[in-house]
């Protein structure tokens, strides 16, 4: 399997404006140096608590936002990436490097190139109640990407829209209706149909079921599975519900305060987590099985703010294993076993 999406040392900081002049006085380090590779055909689950930067990562990756620094490669051959790394390590700001970056790094693309990139990669938003324009009919909502990218025209658009709605399980008799006439699950289906319209290779889902009920959530998850198989899609799936991540994803990344702290296969992450945070996160997740009630680890304290994270390992104030080293230095994400990465000085 080759790598489709490759992010390297990606950072996205939001300035905090202060004072009368609204000058930046600090930064919210929403994403602070994330490296992540998504293989073609993979269903990568990104889990973490509220405010750890999951949405920011997805939106920056899809280039809705411009990254502060770092590289985003979409379908770039390994040799090119290696060449860029090499040129960068030589620390010469050569024109060769610049032209290579301009050609391959999504982070530096011009806005028109980004627009055409959106044909190949799509984002499905968290809240289906706000992500559809309330004043547009369903048929126009789903047809919009086709029109934007001039994929089809005239009558062909209408047939394509009907086909798409059929794919996501909506009847074509509803083309003339407005979003507010649909339930949450149906709206999320519409949003998925819209994302599928241009036949993208990659779709990022930002907690697509968190606003939905359990039974509807199951329908959407099954739909995503079917679509992935049918179109050979690659998914980035953001969620804070570990049970979902464990049951559908084939690779997991755990985020904490702007950083990925652990990456690995779901079997390993959920059964033998190596990072103390992953371990407590998994232990804190309620399971619908009253016989498994005992022995939960209750993590003390609260998630620190990304505007002002603790020095060293961001997890150190809540960690039972933290030492002086953890309070001073930031642990790097290191490979510790086959395909399993951990950023911790004292992995479990």
């Amino acid at each position: 399997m080759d790598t489709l999406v490759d992010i390297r040392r990606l950072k996205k900081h939001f300035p905090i404006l202060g004072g009368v002049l609204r000058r930046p006085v600090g930064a919210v380090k929403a994403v602070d140096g994330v490296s992540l590779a998504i293989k073609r055909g993979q269903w990568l689950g990104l889990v973490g608590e509220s405010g750890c930067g999951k949405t920011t990562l997805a939106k920056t990756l899809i280039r809705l936002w411009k990254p502060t620094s770092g590289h985003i490669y979409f379908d770039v051959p390994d040799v090119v990436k290696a060449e860029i790394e090499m040129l960068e390590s030589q620390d010469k700001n050569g024109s060769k490097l610049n032209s290579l970056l301009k050609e391959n790094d999504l982070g530096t693309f011009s806005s028109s190139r980004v627009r055409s990139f959106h044909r190949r990669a799509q984002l499905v938003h968290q809240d289906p109640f706000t992500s559809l324009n309330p004043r547009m009919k369903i048929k126009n909502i789903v047809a919009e990407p086709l029109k934007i990218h001039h994929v089809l025209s005239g009558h062909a658009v209408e047939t394509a829209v009907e086909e798409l709605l059929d794919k996501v399980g909506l009847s074509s008799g509803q083309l003339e209706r407005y979003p507010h006439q649909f339930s949450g699950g149906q709206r999320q289906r519409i949003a998925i149909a819209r994302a599928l319209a241009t036949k993208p290779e990659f779709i990022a889902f930002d907690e697509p079921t968190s606003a939905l009920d359990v039974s509807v959530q199951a329908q959407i998850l099954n739909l995503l599975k079917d679509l992935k198989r049918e179109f050979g899609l690659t998914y980035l799936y953001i969620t804070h519900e570990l049970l979902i991540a464990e049951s559908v994803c084939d690779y997991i990344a755990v985020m904490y305060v702007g950083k990925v702290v652990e990456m690995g296969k779901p079997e390993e992450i959920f059964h033998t987590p190596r990072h103390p945070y992953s371990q407590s996160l998994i232990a804190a997740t309620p399971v619908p099985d009253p016989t498994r009630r005992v022995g939960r680890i209750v993590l003390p304290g609260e998630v620190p703010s990304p505007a002002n994270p603790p020095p060293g390992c961001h997890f150190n104030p809540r960690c039972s294993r933290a030492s002086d080293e953890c309070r001073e230095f930031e642990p790097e994400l290191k490979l510790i076993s086959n395909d399993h990465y951990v950023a911790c000085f004292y992995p479990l």
Partner: protein
Amino acid sequence: MEDLVRIRDLTVRFHTYEGVVYAIDDLDLDIRQGETLGIVGETGSGKTMTALAILRLIPYPGRIESGSIVFFDKGLRSELELLKLSEDKMRSIRGCKISMVFQEPGSALNPVYTIGDQISEVYLLHQRQELGRQAKRRIDSLLGNGGTLAASIKRPFWRWQSRLYNKIAEGSNPLEPRILSHIPLFRRLLWRLKDEAGLLTVSMLKDVEIPDPDRVAGRYPHELSGGMKQRAVIAMALACSPELLIADEPTTSLDVTIQAQMLELFRRIKADRGASVLFITHNLGVAAEVCDRVAVMYAGRLCEVAGVEEIFLHPMHPYTKALLEAVPMPGKELQTIPGALADAFNPPPGCRFHPRCPSAMPTCQHERPKLKEVAKDHMVACYLY
């Protein structure tokens, strides 16, 4: 176990511009003394409305059409028919004997008062006599000690204060303090009540495991994190030692690790105080974690009520089964429930679940199944049993 609340034939409807919403339909439910009863169900199944009906706070245009809600007041050792009480009486029960915690902690707190002030307010409102008693005790101890000159000068004032607070402690609404409290400067003479309330507040905040409660009491809501706010709201709800604590999705807006702390807190509250908790959630995992018994609702009706283990290990109602199957679990194929949620304006006749039920029979289509006990402590409303 004795019942604390007994709901019978409760029907709540919303008369809207577009038709009548059958929010709750003939609901029978008991909440026992000292138990945590969970209500689970999907959006719009009527969980919140059940809770609000107990407090008689159904929002306009909703109405409690019929039914009875009996509350056993432990203090008075009597049964109260909540739906027939006067509004005044109801107000003294709300926030005191029965209190509620909402999903959004922010919306339950007033942004312009400090946390401490808001919790003190509950004490001042509902526990004036107790506060008066405490204040009197404190003054009396001042009277007892000290032979210094300063103390003997102040003594007559203290005596008068002691009498004043004694009146508050005894009478239901004595004249003197009432007059004082309406005159701006003299109002200060009652400061000890506020002080006592403040002390109780801090100990309450400590009780819900807020670190550094003295400082937090002086904070405004926006200065606290979501989890902290929810703790403060819980402290406020517990202020009067309620007999029933209603929690409407208290952890839904919180993070997993904070949620775990909160669930731990609820478990402790129940164990320490022996209060009953009505715990509303749509997260089956959370329900499994904290509840003793679980009630499953669908489209305004109860499907099944049983102990947690019963419900999760031996579900009987097809809806409960389907709901449990729909929870993603590793290594298990996800099952979906066919069809869509029942239309609130136009619910299907008979069993409301029948259009989606895999084992629906002809009777299910037009006759409503009654909730009946099919095993010990296990009630199901389904014709299969």
